[in-house]
């Protein structure tokens, strides 16, 4: 019995040592240390404002003289457009930035008539009149006597980057940090609808701080992406140039 015990004990020790040696010699992990991605998606060239979670509050803005001509399917139109915008955004930022959106249930009737805000064309960007309209709207949000319903709708969006998106019942387009607006006709008019979504995202991209990609003197597009020539192409064919996403912290 004692002999069997010693045999087994010796065998176990030898097997253990052999396996340990084999493990040390042949099964070393040569893992490459992963480079941790500490950088977060942020506003273009502004790392202090993180935009990993974007909260879009969408409104249908109607000049006072067009209250009777409200587009019947505006809400669905806006929802669907935001859905496509969100998908595009997800793809471009490889799932590292998400958009959550809500549409205010009622149209917002602006103080002035359309003539005060309208640009010459729905594709007329950075129009002064439209900018004035939305600056008014923003001011009203901070005014205690302002639209209480809207304030409740906006609520508090902690840890989220808040962006206001306007579907404007008139002509023109506008985008700046935290704000984007396009003409309703850009989404419904057959002349523009093929690239209306791109046009909306282009303005939304301004809300994220992205600049136009064009020559400052000639005004000619220097890029083929959505911030350049691509703004007039369908969203399905569009992209954001890596130079721009890199500026927003997407590791490349």
């Amino acid at each position, binding site marked *: 019995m*004692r002999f069997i015990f010693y045999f087994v004990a010796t065998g176990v020790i030898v097997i253990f040592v052999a396996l340990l040696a084999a493990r040390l010699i042949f099964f070393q992990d040569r893992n*490459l240390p*992963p480079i941790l991605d500490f950088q977060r998606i942020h506003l273009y060239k502004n790392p202090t404002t993180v935009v990993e979670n974007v909260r879009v509050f969408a409104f249908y803005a109607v000049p006072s003289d067009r209250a009777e001509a409200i587009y019947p399917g505006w809400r669905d139109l806006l929802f669907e457009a935001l859905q496509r915008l969100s998908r595009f955004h997800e*793809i471009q930022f490889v799932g590292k930035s998400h958009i959550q959106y809500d549409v205010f249930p009622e149209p917002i009737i602006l103080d002035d008539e359309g003539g005060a805000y309208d640009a010459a064309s729905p594709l007329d960007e950075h129009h002064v009149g439209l900018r004035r309209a939305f600056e008014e709207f923003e001011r009203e949000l901070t005014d205690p006597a302002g639209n209480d319903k809207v304030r409740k709708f906006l609520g508090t969006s902690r840890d989220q980057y808040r962006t206001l998106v306007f579907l404007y019942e008139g002509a023109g387009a506008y985008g700046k940090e935290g704000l984007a607006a396009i003409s309703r006709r850009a989404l419904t008019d057959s002349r523009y609808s093929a690239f209306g979504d791109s046009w909306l995202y282009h303005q939304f991209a301004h809300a994220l701080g992205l600049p136009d990609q064009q020559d400052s003197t000639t005004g000619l597009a220097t890029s083929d992406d959505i911030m350049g020539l691509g703004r007039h192409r369908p969203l399905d064919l569009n*992209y954001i140039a890596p130079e721009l996403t890199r500026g927003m912290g997407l590791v490349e």
Partner: protein
Amino acid sequence: MRTPTFLYTLTERLKNQLFGKLIRKMLIFMVSIALLPLVISYQSIFIMNSLHRAEVGRTQDDIIEKVMSEMNKEIDSIAVALQLQYNRPTDRLVSIENNSPIFDIIKESEYRVILDGIVKKRADIELITIVDGSSGLQVAVRAPNFQAIEETERFKNAGQLESVKEALGGKLYVGRIYATPRGFMIDIAVPLRTAEGNIPGVVVAKANVKSAMQKIVSLNRLKQTGYVYITDEQGRMLVHSLVTAPFPISLASMGFVETLLAPRELSPEFETLQQYESFWGKKVIASGGVFPQPKLAVVVEWPIDEANALIDQVRGRYIIFTVLVLNLSILLSIFIAQKIVVGPIKILEAGTKRIAWGRLDEPVIVKTGDEIEGLAMSFNEMMKGLKQLEELREEFVFIAAHELRTPVTAIKGYIQMVLEGATGPLNDKTKEFLTKVVDANKRLVNLVNDLLEVARSEAGRLTVTTVPLEMVPIVRSVLSELKPLADEKSIQFVYNPDSSLPKTMADEGRLKEVLVNLIGNAIKYTIPSTGSTGSPQAGSLPGPEGPSGPRTAGQVVSGTVTIRHEVQGEKLTTHIQDTGVGISKEAQKKLFEKFYRVQTEQTQSITGTGLGLFIVKQIVEKMNGTIWVTSEEGKGSTFSFSLPIAASAF
């Protein structure tokens, strides 16, 4: 640090019982030899492992090369489809008049036909434009799936785009791959050349390469679980062999992909074959390569489970085999050492012990048929020689002692006669000197007698005839004989035998000899000193007829010798207990050897030959008895001997 008890016990057992010095040597030797195949096995496994690794690397590299080659073909085929031969001599496609483009040579419809021809051939082209080199205007646009934009795209100025500039320079432009909701697109631009070699414009196409890339990676897989994936320059996964759904996954932060896509040349030390935990959490062996234009990372990952399945199996067998060989070597070394070397050596060792004890007639028997058996035979020869020498020595001692006894007896007799006045009156001085001569002669007679006794014993001439005997009368007789000696030293005998003691088988004369010797020693080694005042104890002293006689109260007693008997099974044991000087443990071991005498400060004045106890032992053993001693220094000794009880007593 304390060694755990069980471990200590185990190592001690291993060390002392199983692994003697010789076995350990053999074990080390055998294990050293067995380690050689172990080292060779490990080396073989190492080589096998390296070869396997190289083989895996080669397989993966082949796949990467194939993927890249097919990617190249795909891009080339798009570029070839865009190559147009423009057979009209011109250096511009449109003129600008009043800020409106006017087609110079051919009409827009003709361009459309040209583009239709291309998109019919290649379904992957989503958008194709012809750009006028001089104005940068897109003079013709074809988007088979988005025809609504053809009109709005026309006459947009693309002159600042890198693709247009590059192609106008006469080069093929291959842009980077980018992700769109429709798939992964690539921009390719080629110059539009006239027969004269002018480049009036360029053809720019956006091709959806997702399906083609997916097909390429799907067809290039490794066995069951190995896969290929391609990432764009940003580390965004484009296609994967096993999954066709779109990937919103960036692998840019993964060390391997990051290293491949780094905007620097790969270091020569960088191993393209790596082993790591994949993005999906499985351990993989991976190889990677960089597709130059558009810059893409092509990675082949093969889960280790499958990649190493065969090698693991072989390696496992190797290890088991090696361990078995090693174990077998250990067992064999123990067996060989035990059976062939240690066993016979132990027999030889026992033989030497027998020689030391004087048992020269028991030969060493070793049957190994080798040198050790030869050694055992020589050993037996040596024993024979020693036995002859011993016999000669015994004979010599016997004869010498015998021859000495006659003259010393004569000397004794004549001196006694002289002392008794046979030669006339002696003065006191002469008497004193002659008394000393008598004493010396007496010691010489004793020595000669003892020597003769020893010689007889060793020569086998010690005659003993055992008959059933009553022990008590013999003891009383001896006590009576030795009483004067005891009285001289004020030593008290205590003997209260049981009247029902059985008879023992003994030789009366020899038994007396034994008792005289043992009781005599007890008296001799009880050193007189200021003793206690004894008082006669009822039943503790011999009766009035006993040899000692009653003692009176107040008489000084310097020691006691107690004799008692005890029946132990079929033996009657007699104990002679004294209150003497006692014997050390060390001395007790040698007490029954020839010529051994206990030499202490207290005993140095006591004379003796050192043969008494040896003779006693021989006699007791001759009577089929045994003798032993128990003693403690300073407290006295007890000599005991047991003899067989006579059969009639049962």
